[in-house]
């Protein structure tokens, strides 16, 4: 908390002000280092040869030896796990937007009995430890033949992503004045045409961002993935299940494989971070 007080512009002149400024800058830089250095160290390990990874002491500089990465990529099961992760994440993305966006639209555009109840249920889902759903669903999936499938896991990940999809699309739609739709109706559109010609083009960037967000939620999820997949393991499931048997350089390359796409996604949707988390969590 010591960083807080000096962050306000001090009213005292001269030294105090300059000192405050320095504390502020130092705090900012240190916090940035706290976030960035660990990621950098992971990358250093990934870009070092296997012997360097288990060597000691380390220099903290990468040797740009790609042996670890090659080892990881050619390791049995990795390519498949990567592919499975992508499939599950894409399915999650499609399901959560496909199911969530209509609900978000309904919440934003209509007043109807039951609206608040639905909103409450959606908000409430976050008060539950959702990965636990995987336990009973494992049984149910065996019964209906969804066990160990990408679709089955995508259903669980969609439960995780759906509340966000609903609340985010709700706020996206609420940002489009209803008059734009009404104007389209008076100009000859039916509801669907007005939606496609007017609303869609306007919310598309936000919709893509929330889709990417759903993708990331699925991409990162560990527990349900580990419970529900055996043969068709995702990357997280693969890594968590082979942690105690795999060599260090495999773990670090795997960690990087998890981190890099997530970093790219976060960067791609950075403009929407607040719409995603800030508003969705009100």
């Amino acid at each position, binding site marked *: 908390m010591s960083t807080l007080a000096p962050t306000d512009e001090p009213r005292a002149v001269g030294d105090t002000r300059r000192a405050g400024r320095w504390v502020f800058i130092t705090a900012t830089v240190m916090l940035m280092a706290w976030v960035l250095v660990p990621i950098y160290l992971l990358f250093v390990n990934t870009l070092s040869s296997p012997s360097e990874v288990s060597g000691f002491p380390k220099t903290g500089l990468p040797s740009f030896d790609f042996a670890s990465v090659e080892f990881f990529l050619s390791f049995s099961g990795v390519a498949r796990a990567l592919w499975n992760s992508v499939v599950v994440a894409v399915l999650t993305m499609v399901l959560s937007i496909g199911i969530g966006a209509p609900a978000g639209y309904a919440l934003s555009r209509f007043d109807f009995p039951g609206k608040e109840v639905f909103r409450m249920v959606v908000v409430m889902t976050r008060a539950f430890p959702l990965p636990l759903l995987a336990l009973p669903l494992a049984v149910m999936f065996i019964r209906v033949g969804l066990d160990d499938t990408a679709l089955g896991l995508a259903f669980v990940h969609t439960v995780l992503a759906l509340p966000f999809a609903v609340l985010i699309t709700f706020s996206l739609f609420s940002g489009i004045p209803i008059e734009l739709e009404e104007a389209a109706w*008076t100009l000859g559109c039916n509801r669907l045409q007005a939606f496609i010609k007017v609303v869609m083009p306007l919310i598309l960037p936000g919709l893509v961002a929330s889709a990417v967000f759903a993708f990331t939620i699925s991409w990162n999820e560990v527990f349900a993935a580990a419970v529900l997949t055996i043969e068709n393991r995702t990357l997280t499931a693969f890594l968590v299940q082979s942690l105690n048997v795999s060599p260090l350089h495999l773990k670090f390359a795997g960690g990087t494989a998890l981190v890099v796409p997530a970093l790219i996604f976060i960067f791609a949707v950075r403009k929407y971070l607040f719409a995603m988390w800030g508003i969705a969590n009100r």
Partner: protein
Amino acid sequence: MAEIIIKQVAKSFGTFQALHSIDMTIRDREFMVLLGASGCGKTTLLRIIAGLETPSQGEVWIGGRRVDHLPPRERGIAMVFQNYAVFPHLTVFENIAFGLRMKKLPQQEIDKRVNRTAELMHIEQLLKRYSGQLSGGQRQRVAVARALAMEPDVILMDEPLSNLDALLRLEMRAELKGVLAESKSTAIYVTHDQVEAMSLADRISVMNGGKIVQNASPVEIYRDPAARFVGSFIGNPPMNFIKANRQDIGRWRVAGLDLYGPSHGASSLEFAIRPEDLTIGEGGFIATARVVEPLGAHTLVTCEVDGKPFRAVLDSDLKVAPGDVLTLIPKPDRIRWFDPETLLAV
């Protein structure tokens, strides 16, 4: 032919009754203004005619066709919204062409109509721009052009000028009047601005509390308010009202004056006069000037008559100071009387 007939239209939102059984006929190519304070139901009525709101009961007929069960696109209407609702992802050209494309008109016809209406609204040089690059006034023009390009039977306008600044509003008002006079459309225009209503309308419907209080020409509304509400709502400053006690048949005592009035059975009425219908002379109301506001051409004097505020608009040549005692004579042909029970004109 696009005569609009509204039969016993009512609308309630939950327990709130927004409209009470409205009956109204708007003649073909007439310019009708719905005037009232916010919350009086005027916008709800307009939206019911547009098809954006479903009436709780009643019928809406446009051009001999019952339309209250039809969606907006099948009613032959076009609408100008208060916030313009210019599509931000389309150019001005595409905005104006939007409805024409929905009608699947040939490109040639679309070009022709867009160019013509753009010219009419003086926005031909803006056709390639997006709404974000336009000023409020320009957006307003696009919204009107978009509606006109549809060549609708009925053009509906919901406070279209209220977001413009005063000068622009004056300019657009005159332009709108000219443009709509030349179009073949019947127009319904919602506003809370009485000056706008007066200057634009063929007829004005004054609304209050979800009911139509008076439906008449602007001059009639001003001169012969059908109800006390209209007199106090229209005109700036509004009408003066003084309690009148019956002396004899057709003789009323008003603030110390004996006046001839209606032969009404009630023991008391309300005497009403507009502030500009007062002159200074002998044998009028004894009024003490309290506040004097020179307005240029005229001077607004707020006086006290019978212990109540009473306004007079006087020639600015007259020198009046607070505290002066004036005698104000009402012009006999401009005196109106209202029943204090029914609040209607007598």
